[in-house]
């Protein structure tokens, strides 16, 4: 092809649930920004508002929530299948542990919709935890920063004088988590921020849970964000790590045993057994942990680089679109 020839930038449709758990809307917006950085034309919308046009790429964030966010399930599935016919590539997005039933639903719905791949917007490769027949469509898209997030990171300082809340635990209440809270109160510091309503949707408005903005306000005044999984499988909750990074704190995941951490996962020093949490969170280690966490993340690939790599495999030359745009 002649270098002066005009090639249209890829057009991407990103579907978000809109009214369900806010973090899937958030993931869709992040993907939109990253694809925008690659020079793609972006349409970010809900299934109900989706225009009847053709696209190079359709991203579903995530298909289960899109299907369940109102109206008849089968009619909504039919609309997604119709969109599939108008797109070159359909990418179903997940930010979930692949061993859970909610990932299995994403996998099954994605297959029915004809999605080409399931992109795991995560921090480590979960393909070893998948059965062999489900690995072909799985791709890890490392959840690196978007350009705007990278700018936020560079503006953060290391001064923790304003972080007057020693730790925060935000999530749904379960007996296992309640016992952990009791342990933190007894052994780490009783003054933690604890918000654990019973399980329900985390919508952007009107939910008893904190939304993204409220959660970030809490984390901006907190040293450690602490959590544990609501299931028994190994997983690194991507959004927990990312929100801590961008609000200037340190994420700490409590795990049953360090033996469950697969080899070569990043940030493994931020995953701690319950019995050792008090010793590991002694105040003198905070600054060291914070610096190491930020330095490590700066070495990770950016989200748009990861998307360009994966989409290139499916014939979408998004990386070169950015060069042309530049």
């Amino acid at each position: 092809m002649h270098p002066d020839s005009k090639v249209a930038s890829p057009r991407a449709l990103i579907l978000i649930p809109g009214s369900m758990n806010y973090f899937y809307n958030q993931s869709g917006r992040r993907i939109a920004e990253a694809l925008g950085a690659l020079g793609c034309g972006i349409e970010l919308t809900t299934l109900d508002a989706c225009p009847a046009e053709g696209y190079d790429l359709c991203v579903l964030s995530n298909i289960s929530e899109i299907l369940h966010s109102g109206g008849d399930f089968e009619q909504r599935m039919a609309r997604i299948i119709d969109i599939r016919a108008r797109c070159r590539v359909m990418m179903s997005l997940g930010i979930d542990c692949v061993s859970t039933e909610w990932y299995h639903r994403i996998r099954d719905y994605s297959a029915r919709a004809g999605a080409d791949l399931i992109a795991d917007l995560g921090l480590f490769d979960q393909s070893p935890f998948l059965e062999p027949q489900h690995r072909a469509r799985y791709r890890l898209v490392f959840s690196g920063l978007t350009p705007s997030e990278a700018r936020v990171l560079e503006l953060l300082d290391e001064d923790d004088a304003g972080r007057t809340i020693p730790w925060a635990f935000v999530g749904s209440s379960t007996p296992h988590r309640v016992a952990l809270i009791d342990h933190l109160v007894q052994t780490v510091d009783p003054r933690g921020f604890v918000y654990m309503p019973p399980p329900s949707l985390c919508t952007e408005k009107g939910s008893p849970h904190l939304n993204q903005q409220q959660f970030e306000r809490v984390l901006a005044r907190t040293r450690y964000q602490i959590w544990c999984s609501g299931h028994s499988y190994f997983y690194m909750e991507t959004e927990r790590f990312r929100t801590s990074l961008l609000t200037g704190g340190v994420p700490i995941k409590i795990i049953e045993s360090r033996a469950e951490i697969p080899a070569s996962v990043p940030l493994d020093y931020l995953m701690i057994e319950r019995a050792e949490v008090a010793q590991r969170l002694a105040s003198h280690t905070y600054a060291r942990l914070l610096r190491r966490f930020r330095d490590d993340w700066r070495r990770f690939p950016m989200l748009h680089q990861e998307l360009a790599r994966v989409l290139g495999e499916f014939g979408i030359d998004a990386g070169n679109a950015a060069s042309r745009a530049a």
Partner: protein
Amino acid sequence: MEAMRAKAGVTIAIPNWNHEVFLPRSIGSALRALEFLRAEGWAGEVLVIDEASRDGSSTLLRQLEALYFKDGLRCLSFGSTENIATTRNAAAEHARYRYLAFVDADNELIPENLSLFVRTLEQTRAAVAYGNLLLRSTTADYAHFMHSCEVIQKRLFRGGNYVDMCSVWDRFQLLDSGGFDSSLSFLEDFEMWLHLATNGRKIVFVPAILGYYYLLPTSSSTDRSRQDAVESRLLRVFNQAKVRELLPLNTHHLRYHPELGYV
């Protein structure tokens, strides 16, 4: 600020009815909480109100009062038992200070955290501040359940009280609102949440651990049939037309942390 806090002050009220063996734990945590409050400039007292206990509570309380009077412990004994609503009203009348923390004998405060709740009342002018309560069985090392762990929502009017009485009150607003319904020997707390909510008072959730509740085999809260009977009466009083969820609620979804403001 310190002078204002010393004048307003905090009374930690502990109603007791035959809970002798639990009193050292609840009173001990309250006295330690006073130490933390005083360090921030608050005046304070621990006020135990004994409802004609027949176990060893009276003797124990007299001994504890003699030992810890200088630390702020006062004990009142009533010769007859009416009900817990009457006892809570008596606490509101006999308290010396503006802010009133209700701590039952089978509760234990997290001493460091009481100040978060008092400061919330000071900063928001709410009627009540409450927070997470960890539930433990008597022999467990760790809690297994958390009570009072969510904000006031309109679903409160559908029944099922999810806010425990272990909470911190503006005593003036409590008295101004008429106090607890003394015709109730049960669920007086649920009645009060509904009363305050329907009268436009603010009930604020503080996202911190206020204390523990120790679950006993004979805890009155395990008697489901009594709860159901009183609950149906309360819902008839406060939501007979079943329109509460359609009406505005001044105290809907209020979360406040003194280090953050409203969240």
